[in-house]
Every structure is written in structure tokens, then in C-alpha cells.
């Protein structure tokens, strides 16, 4: 802090003010708050009556597999062979090497490790199918798959992925062309059928207790498919549609996230494999700058330079000039 001749801090117009010695006027603070309270009540009531609020029904594994069984089956086989987005995600879901985002040595996700463990083959496919009663063919297929060497498993799932790419949906039933995919056809077919009955939704939520409020597993499974993303795209919610600011329908969303989502639209973040961490890093720095703006030279001078204050206090300055 610079100091004047007698050691007192030098007046800085971006930090200090002269004590106000002008007039004071009557001001009923409680009346203002009460009127504002009623005015906002009227405003939000009007908006609620006219526009209501959006409530687009949630997607379930049942509705997904019924509406688009081909996409469901294509996703399910990647969960089985460990190539899905979740299976290769890394922490906090699994220990896939080199999967965490990083900036140089800074790799917080990797440092903190796996905290919501998900084994997609067991948790999304094999485990749920093992709960099915009276399906010996399915159980035999699972046993055959589990007992096969890894190379054989890969050969089967690769063949199935090729075949299911040409699969058809006949009135909600999955028809996959014949191929050399061994028991995988039976496994994925059974999982699709199980999902279409709604059984998979409940099984993925099950944690051994009656109550559960953790939807991590069904949401990860849903997010691995294309169906959820396609529906979001049709509701202008995708990342390249600035979807973070949008809401289903034509409602305003989290418009206050405009700066956060903007960074995802510009290079290098829009193509970077570490884009999320880079955007968060930028936003953390900007937020710190925003919080501590009064302490930052140059930035704290912007209000004085821009002179918008002359518009805000125009009556004060007019009266000052007149006196």
C-alpha cells in the first residue's frame, strides 16, 4: 500500500471513499422489502400460471429396450466385453489405466482412485441374468461364456458386435443375423428381453437392501447408449448446442452457466481429451478472480474507467453540478 507524506495510506479511488457528508433522505426499508416480496410473488405466480414447468418423463431401461432394442443390444455387448464408455472410464468407476483427465502432472481423478466401483460385465449383464429363475439355457450360456478363454470371449463379442450392427427391430423384438458369436447371442437376447419386462431397472438398483436412492448403475448404462443422447439432442440439450443453459421444451435452463459452457465451444477445449479438467481449471481461476476482484489492481479500476457509475448516480452528479 502506498503511503503519503505523513505515513497515512494514500487515497486510492478504487479502494477508498470519502466519508459521505451530504443529505440523508427518509427510507422505509421494511416497507420496500414487503412490497418487493409481494411483487416477486405476483411475478412468479404469473409465470407459473402461464408457463408452468417442464417435466419430461425419465427414460428407463425398459422403455429404451422396448423403443430401440437394437441400440440397447449394441450397448449391452460393449458392457459385456468391457469396451463401453463406462467400462473404459477409469476412476471413480474402475481402474482403467491412463483414462483420467490430466493437465501435465495434475491428475486429481487418478490420485483419488476408484470410489464407485462398477464392473460392467458383472453388474450390468451377468449379475442381473443370474437372478432370472427358470431360464436354464441362459444360465448355460453365461457359464459357457465365463469358462471360455479371454480370446474366445473376445472373438464371440466381436462377432456379435458385427452382427448386431445389422440387427432389426420387429415390433419391439430383436432380430440379430446369424453369426459365430457363440453364447453371446443368447446372453444379450435374454438381457434385452429381461429389460423389456422392466426387470433390469429393478435389478440394477438393487443393493441388497429394500430402499435405494443411488441410480449410478442404471444411469451409467443408459448414458453408454445412443438413445439418451439422441433424445437430448432433439431437446437441444447437447454440449454443442450449449445444452447446459437449456431445458427440455422451450423453458429457460441454467442460463447462469453461460460462461462455463462457452469454454466447451472453443479450442482447444472443444476437442481436447482433457477438456473437462481444462474448463474446470479456467472456471476455478476466474471464480477466484471474481471473488477477490477488490484486491486485484487493474481489474478493480475497470468500474472507474468504464464510467458506468455516472449513469447509476446521474441524479447525484446532476444535483452536485447544480449546487
Amino acid at each position: 500500500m502506498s503511503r503519503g507524506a505523513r505515513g497515512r495510506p494514500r487515497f486510492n479511488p478504487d479502494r477508498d471513499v470519502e466519508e459521505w457528508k451530504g443529505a440523508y433522505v427518509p427510507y422505509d426499508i421494511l416497507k420496500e422489502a414487503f412490497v418487493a416480496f409481494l411483487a416477486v410473488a405476483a411475478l412468479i405466480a404469473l409465470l407459473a400460471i402461464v408457463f408452468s414447468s417442464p417435466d419430461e418423463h425419465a427414460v428407463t431401461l425398459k422403455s429404451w429396450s422396448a423403443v430401440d432394442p437394437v441400440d440397447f443390444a449394441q450397448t449391452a455387448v460393449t458392457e459385456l466385453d468391457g469396451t463401453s464408455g463406462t467400462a473404459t472410464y477409469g476412476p471413480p468407476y474402475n481402474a482403467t489405466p491412463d483414462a483420467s483427465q490430466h493437465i501435465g502432472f495434475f491428475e486429481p481423478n487418478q490420485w483419488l482412485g476408484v470410489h464407485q466401483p462398477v464392473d460392467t460385465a458383472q453388474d450390468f449383464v451377468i449379475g442381473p441374468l443370474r437372478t432370472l429363475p427358470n431360464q436354464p439355457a441362459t444360465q448355460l450360456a453365461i457359464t459357457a461364456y465365463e469358462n471360455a478363454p479371454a480370446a474366445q470371449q473376445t472373438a464371440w463379442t466381436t462377432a456379435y458386435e458385427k452382427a448386431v450392427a445389422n440387427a432389426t427391430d420387429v415390433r419391439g423384438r430383436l432380430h440379430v443375423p446369424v453369426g459365430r458369436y457363440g453364447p453371446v447371442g443368447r446372453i444379450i437376447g435374454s438381457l434385452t428381453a429381461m429389460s423389456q419386462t422392466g426387470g433390469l431397472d429393478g435389478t440394477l438398483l438393487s443393493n441388497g437392501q429394500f430402499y435405494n436412492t443411488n441410480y449410478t448403475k442404471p444411469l451409467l448404462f443408459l448414458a453408454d447408449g445412443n438413445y439418451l443422447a439422441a433424445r437430448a439432442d432433439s431437446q437441444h440439450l447437447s454440449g454443442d448446442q450449449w445444452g447446459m443453459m437449456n431445458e427440455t421444451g422451450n423453458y429457460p435452463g441454467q442460463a447462469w452457466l453461460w460462461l462455463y459452457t462457452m469454454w466447451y465451444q472453443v479450442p482447444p477445449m472443444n476437442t481436447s481429451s482433457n477438456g473437462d479438467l481444462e474448463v474446470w481449471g479456467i472456471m476455478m481461476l476466474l471464480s477466484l478472480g471474481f471473488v477477490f476482484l477488490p484486491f486485484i489492481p487493474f481489474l478493480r479500476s475497470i468500474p472507474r474507467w468504464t464510467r458506468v457509475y455516472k449513469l447509476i448516480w446521474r441524479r447525484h452528479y446532476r444535483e452536485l453540478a447544480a449546487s
Partner: protein
Amino acid sequence: MSIDTGAPPSPSTQDSEDSRQWTARVRRSAESAFPPDRLLPDRQPAYMASWIYVFGVLTVVSLAWVIITGCVLAVMGPSWWHVSSVGLFVNSLHLWSVEAFFFFMVIHLWGKFFMAAWRGNRRLTWVTGVVSFLVSVGAAFTGYLSQQNFDSQWISTQAKDGINATGAGAVWNVLNFGQMLMWHIVLLPIVVALIVGLHVLLVRRRGIVPPFELAKNGDEPEKAAAGTDPA
């Protein structure tokens, strides 16, 4: 015979040792920082004559409506608004009060920025205002995650990548509805209410920032004057 009225003895009659009590010290500090005419003033400086000043109180009353409508939703439970027309209306009030809250708060923030409202020892007022904005963003975000509809499914599955990249996903799982609901209706509202409360108290303590003093030519703020105003 004297009648016990229940009133404590006057502080002036207490031993001087009592004045070192924590309770006595806090009471003296509070009385010094917030005398009644500062806490509930009926006079304000004449320069406070602009519509921009309205947005502070609009932000606070919008927050009050956010909390009131949120409490009604909490009374009836998180699934109520999906199956009840009354619930949908209350949810709509909640949504629009949140939109109003952010709209008014952003204008309030920009207004305070262009006033350089941190001047005159008001830096903590600015800091608490910005922090309340940032925490409110988090509170609103967890609200979107708690809707139990397609919107919350999409937002949570997209947001997990950003949260996980920072490492926060290890303890803060946006796909865990129960966890996000508790953050939305308990933890974050408490933090927002505390910080906004502190912010309002600081505004009452420090007062409203005076205008920039103009130099003789009426153009530029004064560059130098003797001393500073500790306000």
C-alpha cells in the same frame, strides 16, 4: 417481600469480571456493530436514488420465495409434483422463483461491480456476495439433479465428467439421487442462507458505497486526497 419478575439483574450491577464473559463480549460487539438505527435504518444517503438499488432486495425476497416453495415441496416429498397438479404448480413457482433469483442477483452483481462497491472497507461485502452467487449456482445445479425426470438424467450423466475430472466425483456422486437431494434441500440452502445473511449484515454494517468523487472538471474520480475513509 420483593417479587421476582424473572428479569436478570442490570449489567451495570455485575462484577467487572463478568464483562470478560464470552456472552458479554459478544453482546457488546453486536451492540457496537449493529445499533438498531443501523440494523433497521429509516434514513439513507441521498445518492441512493437509482433503480439499480432495488435489485438487491429483489434478490433477497426471491430467495425467500425459493425457500418457501422449496419447503412446500419438501413437506409433500420429492415425487409429489410429478403426480399432482397442485404439486406441479408449486414446482413451477419454485422454478420461476429460482430464475427470478438469478436474474435479479446477476443484475445486482453487475450494478455493484460498476459502482466498485468494495470501496471504503466493503471488500468482505463483495466477497460474500460473489461467494453466495457461486454457492447458489451449486444449489440450483443439485436442484436440477433432483427433478427425477429426463432433464435430471441428462444433466447428471453429462455433469459427471466435469465433476469426476476434478476428483470431486470420489465423494460427490452426481448420479446418486439421494445424495444430491440432501445437498439440495439441506446442506447448500444452509450455506446460501448463512452467506446471504452475512452479506446483508455487512451491508447494514458498512452502509451503501458512496459515489466516486469527481474532480473539478467533473470527469475523473479524484486521484488523491488526504487520508482514507475507514467507513
